[in-house]
Each structure stands twice: as structure tokens, then as C-alpha cells.
């Protein structure tokens, strides 16, 4: 792996927050950190950061060690296998018409752009298994609702700003709904609870209702 420009920031007694230039570097850093420190408790991707948390303050390496291990390049770690996920989606979301009007596209064109895009799971947040997916075509970048819905059903496929996402469970939400999937996005009883893990490549496939 080549050198990545980073900044290491202290974050309490048992974590560091690592700033990177972009989200692709975030996932490369996360993979490298997991290889260097197998005892890490949490490796949390952000939009342009990765948080590394050890189980106790005694486990925390020196800041200089972290900088050297992550910024130095080399290391000889094979990049982790990128998870690839395809989401079968019925594109009948409540906001599809409004998005078409706002963007000046037909509903079919909105769907075609979403289906044609290749997304990367930038990070998880908001709810267990809720992955913020980067890769939304610029033409589809619309603001979230001014007045969020009190209830969005689980499996709703949505867009807002530069992201797309799938609501894992029913919850309030302000993102614009374009479709729905039957896929189980979060299952705590599974060995891999989240269908979409940070760093995964995600595509959507249009299916008949």
C-alpha cells in the first residue's frame, strides 16, 4: 500500500481519530489498522476519518507508533476483500415524482441513474446497519425534506445530498424515498449482522413489484 496523508488526533484515553484525505483512504486505513492491531475493539469509518479504539487505556499505542504504522506506506498488507452487495429494489418511492420534477428528469431517468451507479459504503450511522452510500450521480443530489417524516418503513431506499441509503428498520426520517427493498439490511442474530459493511461496493437492481 502506498503512503496515505493522515493526521492522528488524540480521542480520550483509548482511541485515536485519524483524518484522511478522502473516503477511499479511510477504508484503506481501516484495513491496515485491523492488520497491524488485531486487538482493536472498534474501527469506525467516518466520511474522512477512521476512529481506532482499543479495549482499555493500557492497550493504547503511542501516537507516534500509530502515525508510523499508518502513514509509512509499505506494510505488505493485502487489501481486504471488498464486499459486493446487490440490492433488488422496487422503484415506487413516495418522492420519486417530486425528485423528477426538481431535477428536470423523467422518473425512468431518475431510476436509471440510481441503478447505473456504483456506490461505496462510506460509513455507518443513524441506526444499526444504516450505511451512508457515496457515488450518487450529481444530477440526483437533492436536499432532504424540510419536514422529516415521522415514520419511514424498513427497507426504504432513499437519497439525500450526496448519499443514498436503505432504512434498516422503521424510523423517522428526512431522506427522499425512491424505492423499497425486501432485503434484510440488519439482522442482529446473524454472524454478519449488517448486510452492508463499511467499504462495501453496493449496486441497486430494479425488480418488478
Amino acid at each position, binding site marked *: 500500500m502506498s503512503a496515505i496523508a493522515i493526521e492522528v488526533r488524540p*480521542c*480520550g484515553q483509548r*482511541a485515536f481519530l485519524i483524518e484522511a484525505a478522502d473516503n477511499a483512504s479511510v477504508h484503506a486505513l481501516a484495513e491496515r489498522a485491523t492488520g497491524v492491531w488485531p486487538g482493536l475493539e472498534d474501527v469506525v469509518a*467516518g466520511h474522512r476519518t477512521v*476512529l481506532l479504539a482499543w479495549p482499555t487505556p493500557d492497550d493504547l499505542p503511542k501516537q507516534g507508533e500509530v502515525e508510523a504504522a499508518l502513514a509509512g506506506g509499505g506494510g505488505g498488507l493485502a487489501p481486504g476483500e471488498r464486499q459486493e452487495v446487490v440490492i433488488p429494489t422496487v422503484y415506487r418511492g413516495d418522492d420519486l415524482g417530486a425528485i423528477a420534477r426538481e431535477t428536470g428528469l423523467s422518473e425512468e431517468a431518475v431510476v436509471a441513474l440510481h441503478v447505473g451507479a456504483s456506490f461505496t459504503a462510506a460509513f455507518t*450511522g443513524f441506526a444499526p446497519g444504516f450505511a451512508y452510500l457515496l457515488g450518487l450521480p450529481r444530477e440526483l443530489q437533492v436536499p432532504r425534506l424540510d419536514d422529516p417524516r415521522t415514520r419511514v418503513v424498513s427497507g426504504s431506499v432513499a437519497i439525500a445530498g450526496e448519499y443514498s441509503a436503505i432504512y434498516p428498520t422503521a424510523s423517522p426520517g428526512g431522506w427522499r424515498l425512491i424505492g423499497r427493498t425486501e432485503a434484510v439490511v440488519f439482522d442482529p*442474530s446473524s454472524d454478519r449482522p449488517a448486510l452492508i459493511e463499511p467499504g462495501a461496493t453496493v449496486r441497486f437492481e430494479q425488480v418488478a413489484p
Partner: protein
Amino acid sequence: MIEIIDPGLLTTVQDIGRPGYAALGVPPSGAVDRPSLIAANALVGNPPGMACLETTLTGVSLRLPKGGVAAVTGARAVVRVDGEEVAFGEPFAADPGAVVEVGPAAEGVRSYLAFAGGLDAEPVLGSRSTDLLTGLGPPPLAPTVAVPFGPGPPIPPDGARHPYAEPGSSPGIPAVAANPVLRVVAGPRADRFAAGALEALEAGPWTVSPRSNRIGVRIEGDPLAPLAGAGELRSEGIVTGSIQVPPSGLPTVMLNDRPTTGGYPVIAVVIEEDLRIAGQLRPGSPVRFSIG
């Protein structure tokens, strides 16, 4: 088994939580005053991380249809068995059908009620803890809800009798601080605040807001000023004890049911040893921050 009569403001099942799933958006959850959870378990001869009840300000009352051995730690409260007061911070036995009452917290917020054998509930991602943010784990306890004991008698991990269960060998019941001070480490985003913000954090005065819960403790006082032109922060990972400062300038100390990522700058992080103090901060009480 226990049968809840009155859960008070909020009573939940808590163990040491579900750390290690933050990358998937799962909060750590678990007892916010972990040393008190461990002490309560020790008093009844349980391994340290078994599931207990965590009460909130007003205590709990429950029935033990088949009796049991229990102990209360954390926020100091009057404990009664069938109306007779028993010692706080010491194990007691209750007969079948006995009613156990943990009174309102005299100091702090959360008392921990441990039972020999622990409490059983369906584990989710390895933990029986109720997570108020995501709804993972058992729901908060309601009247008439029954929770079975775990398998007993408990066997300590090393096969030996747990030393804390020996009379007189208790590690001591962690006390709730009278004049709470949270020691903090500056950063990771102290540089997104105006000059003097860290000094202002230390100087206070600050008061604990009643709008506090297991997700975070909101703090009231003079707002901390952001650095002019710092722009918006993108979502990034946070830890328990992170002191987030939203645009209001009023800090929130994140507790165990916090989100895993956040978009507000974190000016400082509470040290591990003082997280339990944060978890016992009473609404309306003063709190100070000390930068290490």
C-alpha cells in the same frame, strides 16, 4: 425470577454492553456506572459482567416469587424487603413472595440491583442490555413484566469462588461524587473552537440539564464559541465520554447509548475512570471539567 411492580422513571436490564460493533452503527450500551455493576455482582457472588437492573432516580419495586439473594449499589437509596430496611451495598436474602423496594436515589441517579445467578433475557449481539437509542435488547421494564434469573449458582470464570463474595472481602462500594469533576483529555476537535474555549470549559460554571439520559448528559452554561469559519464537520466516529458541542455551544457528554458517529465537534473526552461519575450526574447539579 423477578416480577416488576413499579419500574419508577426507568428501569432497564444492563450488563457490560455490546462493545465492538460500532462499525455497524451499534452503540456500546451497558451499565453507565460499570464499577457499581461489577460491585453489585460481586456482592451476590456473580461474575463481574452479569445482567442487573439499572434504576433511574426513583428506584424500583418488584416481587421475588421464589425468593433470592440480591444487593444494591450505585446511587445510594433506602432498600426494603417486605417493608424492613436492609443495608445498601450488602447482600441480602429474600423469602419466596417477598417485595423488594429500592427507594429514590439520595445521591446520583442510577442504582444497580444484582441477583445471585444474574438476570436472563434474550441476548442481542452478546449482551442483555437495553439500548434506548436503537431499541436493541429487552424493552425497558414495565409493571407485571417478569424476568427470569440466569443459571445458578453462578460459577466464576476461573472455577474458584469469587473472592468478592467472601464476607469482608468486598472491594468497596464505589461512592457517588458529591462535587463531581470530570477529568478530560482535550480533543480530537478542540481546534474547531475559538481561542479560550478549553479554558471556558474548565472555568464553567456548568449545570446538568434535566434533558439528560443514557444517550448523553446535556450541560447548561455559557455557550462555547466555535472557531469562526471552521465550517461544518463531516460525520466521524465518537467514543463514550466524547463531549460534543452542537451549534448551541452547550456541551453534551455522550454516554453508553450514544450514536456511533456524529457530526458535531468533540472538544474533549472524559477519562475512563470518570465515565461513571458522568453517568451519575443529577439533573440540576453543578459539574466541573478538568483538563489533564
